[in-house]
C-alpha cells in the first residue's frame, strides 16, 4: 500500500496513469452530462412558480458544489506540498486552480442569471454569493501569483501557502455574511430531512453533478500531464517521451 503511494507520488510513474484516468473520466463526463441534460431539459417538468427558469439549477448547483469542493482538494494538495515538499502534489494544486476558477465563475454567472427572473436582480450581497465571489478571487489570486513568480519551485510553495490561508478564510466569509444578511435559499438536500425536491429533479441534479465532477477530474489530470512535461522537460524520461510523439 505504502509502496504504491510512493510509486505514484513521483511524476514519472504518475504520468501514464494520469493519461489513462483522464481518458476514462473524459468519457464518463460526456455520458453523464448528456444524460443529465436529457433529464434536466426534457424529462423534468416545468416548475409551477418559476417556469422554465429553474432549469438553470442543473448547471448552477453542480458548478457551485464543485467550486467549493475543488478548493478543498487544492488546499489538501497544497498542504501536502508544503509539508512534504513533494513535486507532484504542488503540480496537482496548480492544475486544479483554473478548473476551480471556471466552476466558481460558472456558478456566479448561472446564479446571476437565475437571480434576474426570481429575485429581480442579478446580484445581492448574500452569504453564498459573496463567498463564491471571494472564492473566485482566491482562485484568480493563486493563478496570478503563480504567473508572477519566475521560479516554479518558489511559486509552488507561495501558492500553497496562499491556498491554505484562503482555506481558513472562505468559511469565515461564509458565516460572516450569513449572520449579516441572507437572501439565497438554504440547503435543500440533506441526509436528515425528507427530500424537498421532486425525484426527477434530484436525479437530474445528481447525474449532472457526476458529469461535472468527471469533467473536472479529466481536465485536471490532462492539465497535470501538461505541467509535468513542461516542468520536467530537462529530465531524460520526458525527453524520450516527447521525441517519438514529435516524430509521429
Amino acid at each position, binding site marked *: 500500500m505504502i509502496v504504491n503511494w510512493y510509486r505514484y507520488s513521483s511524476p514519472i510513474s504518475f504520468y501514464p496513469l494520469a493519461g489513462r484516468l483522464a481518458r476514462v473520466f473524459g468519457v464518463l463526463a460526456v455520458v453523464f452530462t448528456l444524460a443529465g441534460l436529457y433529464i434536466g431539459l426534457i424529462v423534468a417538468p416545468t416548475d409551477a412558480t418559476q417556469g422554465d427558469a429553474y432549469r438553470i439549477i442543473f448547471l448552477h448547483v453542480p458548478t457551485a458544489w464543485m467550486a467549493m469542493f475543488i478548493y478543498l482538494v487544492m488546499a489538501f494538495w497544497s498542504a501536502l506540498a508544503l509539508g512534504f515538499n513533494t513535486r507532484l502534489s504542488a503540480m496537482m494544486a496548480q492544475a486544479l486552480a483554473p478548473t476551480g476558477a471556471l466552476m466558481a465563475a460558472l456558478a456566479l454567472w448561472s446564479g446571476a442569471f437565475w437571480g434576474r427572473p426570481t429575485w429581480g436582480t442579478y446580484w445581492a450581497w448574500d452569504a453564498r454569493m459573496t463567498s463564491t465571489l471571494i472564492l473566485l*478571487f482566491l482562485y484568480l489570486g493563486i493563478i496570478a501569483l503563480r504567473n508572477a513568480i519566475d*521560479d516554479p519551485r*518558489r511559486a509552488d510553495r507561495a501558492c500553497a501557502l496562499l491556498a491554505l490561508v484562503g482555506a481558513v478564510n472562505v468559511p469565515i466569509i461564509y458565516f*460572516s455574511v450569513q449572520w*449579516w444578511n441572507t437572501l439565497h435559499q438554504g440547503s435543500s438536500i440533506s441526509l436528515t430531512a425528507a427530500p424537498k425536491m421532486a425525484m426527477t429533479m434530484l436525479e437530474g441534479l445528481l447525474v449532472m453533478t457526476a458529469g461535472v465532477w468527471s469533467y473536472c477530474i479529466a481536465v485536471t489530470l490532462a492539465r497535470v500531464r501538461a505541467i509535468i512535461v513542461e516542468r520536467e522537460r530537462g529530465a531524460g524520461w520526458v525527453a524520450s517521451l516527447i521525441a517519438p510523439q514529435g516524430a509521429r
Partner: protein
Amino acid sequence: MSPTAVPQPDAASVSAAFAWALGRDLRIALRSKAELGVQLMFYVIVVSLFPLASSPSREVLATLGPGVLWTAALLASLLSLPRLFAADFGDGTLEQIALSPRPLPALVSGKMAAHWLTTGLPVAVLAPLLGEQYAMDGTELWILAAALLLGTPILSLLGAIGATLTLGARGGGSLLALLVLPLYAPVLIFGAGAVDAVRSGLSAGPQLSLLAAGLLLALVGTPFAVAAAVRIALD
C-alpha cells in the same frame, strides 16, 4: 533534537526579537515623516470625498458613514503594504533577519506591529473625528473607534501575508491588492456591521466579539504564515 540543541525560543527571546523589529521599523518610519503624512492625507481625502462630492442628505450620509470609513481604512492599509517588506527584501535586511537565531515569527510580528502603529492606529484615532462629517453620534463613534482598533491590526496581519508572498514577484502593487482584498472582506463586513448594529438599536457585541476572535486567530496564525512566506521568498 540533541540535548546540546539550541534552546527553543523562550518568552524572553521572543519578546526581545519582537521589540527589536518593532523599534527598528518605527525608527525608520519616523525618519521619513512625509510618508506618514501621505497616508493620513489619503485617508482624509477619501473619507471627505463623499460628503463633498455628492452633498447627500443626513440619513444617506449616516448610512454611508461606517462603510466609507472602513473601506478607507482598508485602502490606507493596502497602500502602505508594498513597502512593508519590499525595502527589507531589496537591501538584504530580510536575509539577515531570516538567518538570525532569533525566532522569525517574533521578528516579523514586530514589523507587523510597527505597520499597524503607523497606519492602523492613526486611522482608528482619526476616524471618530472624521465620523462627525457622517452624522454619527457619540455611541456610534465610540463603537466605530473600537471596531477599528480591533479590526485594523487584522488588516496589518493579513496584509503582511500578501506582502511577503509577492516579494520577488512581478507586478507588485495590484497583485498584492488582488491577493489581500479577498482576505480583508470579513473584517470589513463585521467592522462596518458593528456600527450598523448600534444604529439599528441592536448591540454591537456580536460583531465586536467576532472581530476580537478574528484578531486572536490572526495574532496566533499569521506570524507563522508570514515567517514561512519570508523563507519561501528568500529561497
